[in-house]
């Protein structure tokens, strides 16, 4: 019962809860939303224990939806999507709690949108029908568009529409590619089906068309990741979004792009993806992302913008891990995805807390505040170190695995990427120094409040995860290993067969 209903419950509950939030009085909205998101988390937690790593796709629910077009409602998770789902349900309650003080207008609308967004995000990660996936992929745009556009900073309108149009552009081309793929496979096999399992099993003679289809998928996911040079929407969206929006954007939404590569772009078009020129090109773009993101982050006066560019660099690591396509690098990429969600999420929370105290995001507005707010300073230090990838924090494990795995297929790329870790230290440590260490020379910083219990409640789980994954990542790696291994092997095998038969 639980195994069939859980994913659908995770999809449906936030929508129901959003409707409840809209109905309750304004001042209760945030509490109801928090309770609802905690319930959502509670529903998802048993997945961790009941998940059987070797069993492949599980918690399957497969119902007909629009039979005339071969569209089904198929949801399931495997070792790749499980962690994305858990990351989402874990970050949402924290984001809701983190918005308690920040969001002061139209609270009902805000929290209802947060919950609706949760549904869309989970939907993207659990859909195994390309139609359902596409619908979820698009639907989650709207709540985020509103969250940025209504509750964002000064240039929120610009950031919101930029975010929307970039993503919309990529995803519509993907839509045509999905349709072309289904109709091609349908012409050959006589069955028109949007089912992921069916399509991956009948990829036989796509021929040169596969190149164009892959291009469309690539564009949609690369914009979402975002890969250099498609990243320009990200700094705007991150900076203008309210704290919770930034956290969800960095923590979950960016992972949809990398998840899309793992789930769809690679398995559907293995021959194209492993074509040497394309693979090398994408690895090169990932490296540019790592180095460029780091270098640009170095010169940012705005703390949120710095974090935004650091995301470009981190996601470059993920892309490198995916496209190096060894077991270790893919596991590393998955781990970096989780870590980035935790560490960068925590960084955005801290940036938001600083902003709530001083109403400034500029790094130079602070200085020496470690004396005034020791707890906040300590948290910021730990999180920054984990983002840099210091050993014994989560950041180290993921990036190390990526480098280790990538070294086997792309040794030179791995060396350049390792330099990227140093760049990370070069932009985060000075920023850290300027914010919390340097002399306390600004009188307005002398009376800052330290962390409130609510803020401690937000940061404590994140810090716990940082240490836990840094010290003992084995439970996570064990759960993702069969899925990652299966992906790497099947993609390499398919690529070999398709290339040979061509």
């Amino acid at each position: 019962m639980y195994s069939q209903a859980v994913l659908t419950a995770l999809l449906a509950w936030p929508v129901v809860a959003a409707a409840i939030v809209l109905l309750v009085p304004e001042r209760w909205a945030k509490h109801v939303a928090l309770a609802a998101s905690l319930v959502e988390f509670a529903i998802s937690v048993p997945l961790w224990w009941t998940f059987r790593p070797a069993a492949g796709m599980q918690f399957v629910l497969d119902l007909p939806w629009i039979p005339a077009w071969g569209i089904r409602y198929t949801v399931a998770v495997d070792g790749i999507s499980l962690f994305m789902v858990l990351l989402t349900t874990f970050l949402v309650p924290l984001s809701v709690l983190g918005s308690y003080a920040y969001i002061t207008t139209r609270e009902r609308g805000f929290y209802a949108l947060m919950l609706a967004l949760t549904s869309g995000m989970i939907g993207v990660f659990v859909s195994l029908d390309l139609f359902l996936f596409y619908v979820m992929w698009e639907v989650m745009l709207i709540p985020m568009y509103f969250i940025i556009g209504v509750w964002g900073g000064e240039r929120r309108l610009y950031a919101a529409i930029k975010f929307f149009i970039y993503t919309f552009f990529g995803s519509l081309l993907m839509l045509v590619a999905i349709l072309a793929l289904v109709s091609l496979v349908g012409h050959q096999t006589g069955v028109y089906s949007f089912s992921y399992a069916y399509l991956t099993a009948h990829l036989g003679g796509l021929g040169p068309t596969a190149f164009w289809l892959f291009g469309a998928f690539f564009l949609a996911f690369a914009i979402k990741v975002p890969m250099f040079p498609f990243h320009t929407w990200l700094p705007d969206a991150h900076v203008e979004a309210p704290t919770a929006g930034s956290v969800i954007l960095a923590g979950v939404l960016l992972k949809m792009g990398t998840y899309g590569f793992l789930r769809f772009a690679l398995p559907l078009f293995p021959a194209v993806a492993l074509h040497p020129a394309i693979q090398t090109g994408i690895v090169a773009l990932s490296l540019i992302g790592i180095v460029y993101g780091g270098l640009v982050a170095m010169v940012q006066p705005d703390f949120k913008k710095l974090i935004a560019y650091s995301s470009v660099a981190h996601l470059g690591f993920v892309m490198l891990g995916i496209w190096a396509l060894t077991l270790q690098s893919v596991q590393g990429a998955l781990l970096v995805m989780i870590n980035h969600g935790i560490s960068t999420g925590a960084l955005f929370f801290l940036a938001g807390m600083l902003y709530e105290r001083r109403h400034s995001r500029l790094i130079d507005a602070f200085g020496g505040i470690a004396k005034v707010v020791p707890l906040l300073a300590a948290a910021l230090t730990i999180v920054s170190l984990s983002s840099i990838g210091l050993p014994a924090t989560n950041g180290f494990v993921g990036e190390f695995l990526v480098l280790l795995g990538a070294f086997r297929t792309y040794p030179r790329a791995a060396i350049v990427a390792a330099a990227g870790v140093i760049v990370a230290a070069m932009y985060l440590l000075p920023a850290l120094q300027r914010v919390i260490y340097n002399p306390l020379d600004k009188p307005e910083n002398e009376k800052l409040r330290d962390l409130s219990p609510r803020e401690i409640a937000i940061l404590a789980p994140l810090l716990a995860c940082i240490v836990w994954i840094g010290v003992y990542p084995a439970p996570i790696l064990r759960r993702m290993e069969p899925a990652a291994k299966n992906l790497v092997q099947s993609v390499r095998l398919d690529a070999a067969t398709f290339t040979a038969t061509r």
Partner: protein
Amino acid sequence: MNLDLTTTGDLARALLPELTLTAAGLLVLLVTAWRHTSARDLRIAGWVTLAGLAAGGAAVWWLWWHTARSAAPPSMIAVDDFRFVTDALFLTAAGLTVLVSFDYLEREGLLVPEYYVLLLFATLGMMLMAGGEDLMVVFLGLELMSVSVYVLAGINRKSGAAAEAALKYFLLGAFASGFLLYGIALVYGATATTNLTQIAAQARSLSLAQSPMLLIGLGLLLVGFGFKVAAVPFHMWAPDVYDGAPTPVTGYMATAVKAAAFAALVRVLLEGFGDVAAWRPIVWWLAVATMVVGNLIALAQRRVKRMLAYSSIAHAGYLLVAVAAGMGPGSAALLVYLFAYTLVTLAAFALLAAKGRDDEREVRIDDLAGLGHRRPWLALALAVCMLSLLGFPGTAGFIGKWYILVAATLMHQTVLAAILVLTSVVSAGYYLPVIMAMYMKPEPFDQAHAGVHIGRAAGVVVAACVVGLLVLGIRPNGLLDLARTSAIVVPAPTPAATATGR
């Protein structure tokens, strides 16, 4: 039920909807001859019209229920599901327009009950036009519809813009009719018949696919229809006419008139010229030009009504893609899209009429600022309309667009599909600002929306349309099945009939 159309009784049965509507029109004419002075008289005429439309609908349903078919194909009027479904569409659009008009006419002081008579006759014309199996019937229907709509466009005699719109529409419409009629004459010259089935048979048996006379005749037919559906480059009249006509009439023109022209176009092309490949590249280019120009010019509009006018040109482009896809999937997609588009456009124009007082032509997009705060339900309805026009998943607009894309990719028109989605991205640039203004910008001054008023009947229409859009967006199965079984399928005697243009 097999009808032998050579006998009077069966012919009357086949024409039952048209006869019912004629009777209703004459009845309303009689009623208004005696009662045409007060607002109450106007309402009476409106209710009689609604009853007439309902009776017509019942007649259509009766024929559809008995699966009426014509026993001997070459006849003046088609008896097939495509006709019944399009009839239902026209009747629905007319009924909704009547409901929206109730308040509008009283508010604007247009105490002219002839309005309803003209509406009935225009609808009758559409039904003849879309059901005509003979070019002469198509032409007669088109003229009946056009003449009625010319008058409707200028029914507000106090408005200079309406007079301009009516005159422009009349002059260009007459011009288009001339093209159409000359095309019919040339086709007659080449094939010695005006019956669609016989044209196809003649073209085949005499191998007229390259005959200059037939091709020129076909070209002139396309020009005539191009004017009626407002395809670029024959669209020049549309923005001014849509802009100047009373808003409910604009909604009627943008939906029912366009739907009728498309239904007739598809029937003529598929049944009469299925073997003549020459029209496919022409329609292909018309579609591309219409989508590109319509969307780009709409982007530059600041006033809502004019923006909607250009957007309806863009939608004609999407519909032309369905025509270019041709045959079964294409005409089914056309039906689904027309249905979704009719609901959303009628609702959007009804909402616009509610916002504007005296002269809703002047409502700029920025004048909607803060509407989301002041009138949440109205704003929500308008937001859903904009998303549906954009083709966003979860709304019927997406299902329509999806179906057109499916049809296009099935017929190997992937390039056309790609152009469709790229121009859709452009359309986000003018639909989203409406949502943005409503929700993300503050009210320009207090009581800026005090004049917003939507009548009860119009409110019901909007609510029904919006709910319909959302329900069909999630559960379109019924509509899809209906469209599939009602598509025009011409038995292909030669394989050449299925050859595609490019």
